[in-house]
């Protein structure tokens, strides 16, 4: 009995040792700064000769954000709506492409590279300029006068929003490189024997997708949903992020921290909902 207990404790201890490095790094560079910024959110910060000086102001910053500030609420709403449009599109597109790329065919490596290239490029400076010129969408479709060409065939009331969606689709696709890679890695982990067994039992590819691929990819879908949400929320060219950054530049640290926390709480609520949905889904499958 005593031996068993010590085994268990040893098991725990070993686990903690493995995890400790990460926890230390995390506390020093994430947890402590997070706590500090919460503290700042309730304070007015002034740079004085002896460093930062904080005076308590209570909920003032939070009230200001929704009552006095004109820019913040509208930017917040547009960021959230574009999130709800983009994330499902990114996920569906990424699964689709990952499944195509997971098949055995000539030139697979090249195609994989092509689908990941935008991630490499878009973090660079050039695409940012392009994006700032074209706003959120790239004028690929409108630039080549597709609108005028197709107007005779399709009524303009339908055509205009259709082209807008297509324009933002290109951006969606460029954002999905990492997700495609994660799905690919997930697909590789599924044993081929499962598909063979299903095929022997007479399952169609459509059935084996929903009965094998989809449930086994569930953890990766969760990762990707989170990654896409976080990625689109914390992108530097995101409207709210830009705004918070500009408030920081004005040295209104307290107010900027408060904005950051409001933003954070909203993301928290959305991600909490995502987790809730996924947990129900996963336990359903049991």
């Amino acid at each position: 009995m005593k031996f068993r207990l010590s085994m268990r404790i040893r098991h725990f201890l070993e686990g903690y040792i493995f995890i400790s490095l990460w926890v230390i790094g995390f506390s020093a560079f994430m947890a402590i700064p997070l706590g500090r910024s919460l503290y700042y959110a309730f304070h007015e910060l002034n740079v004085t000769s002896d460093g930062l000086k904080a005076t308590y102001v209570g909920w003032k910053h939070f009230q200001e954000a929704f009552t006095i500030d004109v820019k913040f609420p509208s930017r917040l709403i547009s960021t959230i709506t574009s999130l709800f449009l983009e994330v499902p599109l990114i996920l569906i597109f990424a699964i689709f492409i990952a499944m195509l790329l997971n098949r055995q065919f000539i030139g697979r490596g090249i195609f994989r590279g092509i689908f990941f290239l935008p991630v490499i490029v878009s973090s660079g400076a050039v695409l940012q300029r392009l994006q700032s010129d074209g706003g959120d969408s790239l004028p690929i479709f409108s630039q080549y006068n597709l609108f005028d060409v197709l107007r005779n065939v399709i009524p303009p009331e339908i055509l205009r929003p259709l082209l807008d969606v297509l324009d933002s689709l290109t951006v969606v696709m460029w954002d999905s490189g990492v997700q495609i890679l994660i799905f690919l890695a997930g697909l590789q982990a599924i044993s081929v024997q499962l598909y063979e067994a299903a095929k022997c039992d007479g399952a169609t590819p459509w059935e084996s997708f929903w009965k094998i691929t989809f449930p086994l990819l569930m953890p990766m879908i969760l990762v990707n949903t989170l990654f896409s949400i976080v990625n689109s929320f914390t992108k530097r060219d995101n409207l709210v992020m830009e705004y918070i950054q500009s408030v920081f530049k004005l040295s209104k640290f307290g107010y900027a921290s408060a904005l950051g926390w409001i933003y954070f709480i909203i993301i928290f609520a959305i991600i909490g909902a995502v987790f809730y949905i996924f947990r129900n889904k996963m336990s359903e499958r049991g």
Partner: protein
Amino acid sequence: MEHSLAVKGKRFDFGGTILYVLLTLFGLLMLAPLIYMVSTAFKPTSELFLFPPRFFVMEPTIRNFNDLVLATGTSIVPFSRYIFNSFIVSGAIVVLGALIAAMAAYPLSKHNMPFRKMIFSMIIFALMFAPQVTQIPQFLVINKLGIINTYFALILPFVAAPVGMFLMKQFADQIPDVLLEAVKIDGAGEWKTFWIIVIPMLKPALATFALISFIAAWNDPFSATIYTTTENMKTLPNALQTIQGGAGVVARVGTVAAASLLMTIPTILVFVISQKMVLETMAHSGIKE
């Protein structure tokens, strides 16, 4: 028999064609930003400022690359210093980050210990927080540690990355417990189990994470701007900003385009290597395709 074979052949061809058509179609669209970048790097000044921006270059020139060489010659510290810094910082972030994330993910998914759930919720919590908001408190922490203007200031804050940790944990969950038990029965300790079972099984996740974190580290100008003050410690993205700013800003858009084109080359190399690693894992694990 012969008849059924013929049908099978035909059906495969049909699927294959659709596959290629779809991939080519999407692929062309995906290539657009790269084409834009390459063509911008070769654009003469007259074409750089057209509105709306033109996709293809009409009269290609290598003047931008010449300008880049000239601009790098005039910087305060030798340009190779920026390159060296960038490689050191990104390399350390990738290697340490991947190792620490894998080490933490293993007990999180396989050891049933107290506080496990709490640590995991902490990761989720941290995932969501916008990095800009913690910048100033983070600076204060780094300042207190006395590592401003060292490589540590550029590396340490990014080593305990929540994203990588979450990714690793999801993959570690899929390692069969039987495998771990088998190794332990054969007498391997935790550390050995980690190296001979967990790391190889996590290879796809490691490769994917390495790639993501390399791209983030390689392109991040902010940490070097904030945590270092001497020109000696700046990284390539800073050098890029220096080229961009200063006197004669207008003329240098093309130079920046050329420089950022050159900057993507290491990223592409890392991509190729990491994808090879994913494929190799499959070969070693004995799973056939």
